[in-house]
């Protein structure tokens, strides 16, 4: 019995250390964002005496956050919706084996992980097409039908009876109508999970935003934060306020949606 208690204490201690390493930085950032500049300079570590929102107001204005959030939402919705549609319409005929060269097409999407990184030629292509510093040029590289969604949908569609296809087509239901009215509603759990994971990826993108965008009007929120931290490096309190404003929507979404997120990650790595 005592041995079990000892193990329990050991495990709890270990978890406590890990929790501290993970939660402390976030609380420290939050704490810093509530301090006045003077308070931070005199003692950066102490707990904020009172909660000041001035930093938020200032950072919100200076970092132009309201404009960038709109851009980010737009990019996220367009890229994610397009990717989900592509992955669905790709996974269905492959999963069912309706296409003659199905395995070759599948191979096209799997082989890319064994190839060199294509960022540079992709940039050259979009640059020469005049898509540098445009919304389309920024988004198009983040849209695609491959990756984890393709694998997950491929497996998921196998679980939907083939008889549905037959019944629908005998009743004269066209392919696209069948997909939108019957199959896609049936795929809802897989779609929701993959939608969220893809959306987080698009929302958090910063490298493409730096490479492809030069006009402020087009910046997503991550790029806005990046510019802000470069300009106001000295003012840690405002910097952390801006950071919290960027992170808060993600944390809130995560609290409510984490079941789908974790399911999706596990499915991507283990399920197949």
């Amino acid at each position, binding site marked *: 019995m005592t041995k079990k208690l000892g193990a329990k204490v050991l495990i709890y201690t270990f978890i406590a250390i890990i929790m501290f390493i993970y939660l402390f930085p976030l609380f420290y950032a939050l704490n810093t964002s509530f301090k006045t500049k003077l308070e931070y300079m005199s003692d950066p570590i102490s707990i904020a005496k009172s909660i000041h929102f001035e930093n938020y107001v200032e950072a919100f204005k200076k970092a132009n956050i309201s404009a960038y959030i709109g851009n980010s939402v737009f990019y996220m919705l367009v890229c994610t919706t397009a990717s989900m549609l592509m992955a669905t*319409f790709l996974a269905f005929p492959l999963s069912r084996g309706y296409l003659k060269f199905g395995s070759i097409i599948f191979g096209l999407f799997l082989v890319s992980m064994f190839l060199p990184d294509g960022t540079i030629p992709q940039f050259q292509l979009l640059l020469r097409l005049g898509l540098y510093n445009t919304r389309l040029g920024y988004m198009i590289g983040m849209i695609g039908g491959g990756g984890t969604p393709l694998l997950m949908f491929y497996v998921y569609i196998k679980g939907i009876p083939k008889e549905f296809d037959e019944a629908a087509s005998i009743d004269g239901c066209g392919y*696209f109508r069948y997909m939108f009215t019957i199959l896609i509603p049936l795929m809802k759990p897989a779609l929701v999970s993959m939608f969220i994971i893809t959306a987080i990826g698009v929302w958090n993108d910063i490298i493409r935003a730096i490479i492809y965008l030069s006009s402020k009007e087009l910046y997503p929120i991550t790029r806005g934060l990046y510019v802000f931290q470069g300009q106001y490096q000295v003012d840690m309190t405002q910097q952390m306020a801006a950071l919290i404003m960027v992170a808060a929507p993600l944390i809130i979404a995560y609290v409510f949606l984490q079941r789908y997120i974790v399911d999706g990650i596990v499915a991507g790595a283990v399920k197949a």
Partner: protein
Amino acid sequence: MPLGTGIRVIKGDNMQASRTSFKKWSLVLGIIPAVFLQLTLGIGPSIATFILSFTDISGVKGVPWKFIGLANYRELFFQQNSRDLIQVIQNTIIFCVAVTVIQNLIAIFIALALNSKMIRGRSFYRSVVFMPSVLGVLVTSLVWLCVLNPMDGPVAKFIGLFGLQSGFFKSNSSALACVIFTQIWMAMGHSMVINLAGLQSIPNELYEAGEIDGTSGWQKFRYITFPLLWPTINVNILLAVIGSLQSFQIILFTTGGRNMATQTLAARVVYYAFNINAGSGAAAMRQGYGAAWAMFLFVFILTATLIYVRAMKRREELT
């Protein structure tokens, strides 16, 4: 994308064409957008990286460019300061090995702890460790820059109590360690979640049978948990090796693009090709030269993967 899973998917299937009464052209129409994008923006550019590595193309439109043969590779291997090249390779290997080993060890321990039934609040702990994956690279980098601020950050004050001091991201001796730490902090949730799923797939009967035979806790781990979790760990290791070799974002946002103490191969590619965070006075975007670095990185990753897979195969044959 998890390496290997996709191949397993296809292998398990006989992808023979089956009949359908849907119109063939409509099925083909449905896959055209995805296939078109994959060819033009996925596979096409990947192959073109090889071609561009023989040119002096720049990232500016309208500047003439030409094929210059092996000049980029000659510059990469022989004409630059060889100390820099050696340091980049050394950093890459240290970064990859440290991230892979530490991240996986801790992720196994956390998964084991969070899988044990006597612990309360497990889903909360799991959520906390996974959170950085949702927050993304930029937020992660900025938070740690603030916490590891060498002037007045909390960690600096804490080690100051013991009379120690460090420049963290800003000093050459500690920057690489800080970058490795931040990378692990961010990516560990992913490995942990995969490990947890692996642990949950181990049937309970095995442990019950073990209990009847009177196995100790260690024996349970050694003879039941570990062998059955091994395939999962294997996937995790491979993902960490490839992921850490390709990763440059944390390096870029914490120590910048110029600090040689933390430069890895992947960071060099963006440094030359896009000048991100490279500071003032950086050369123009030398994308041909950047492509040569990308090819070098590609060969590096391929070699590392092959060595690992080969080693694992030998291990399986031995046991």
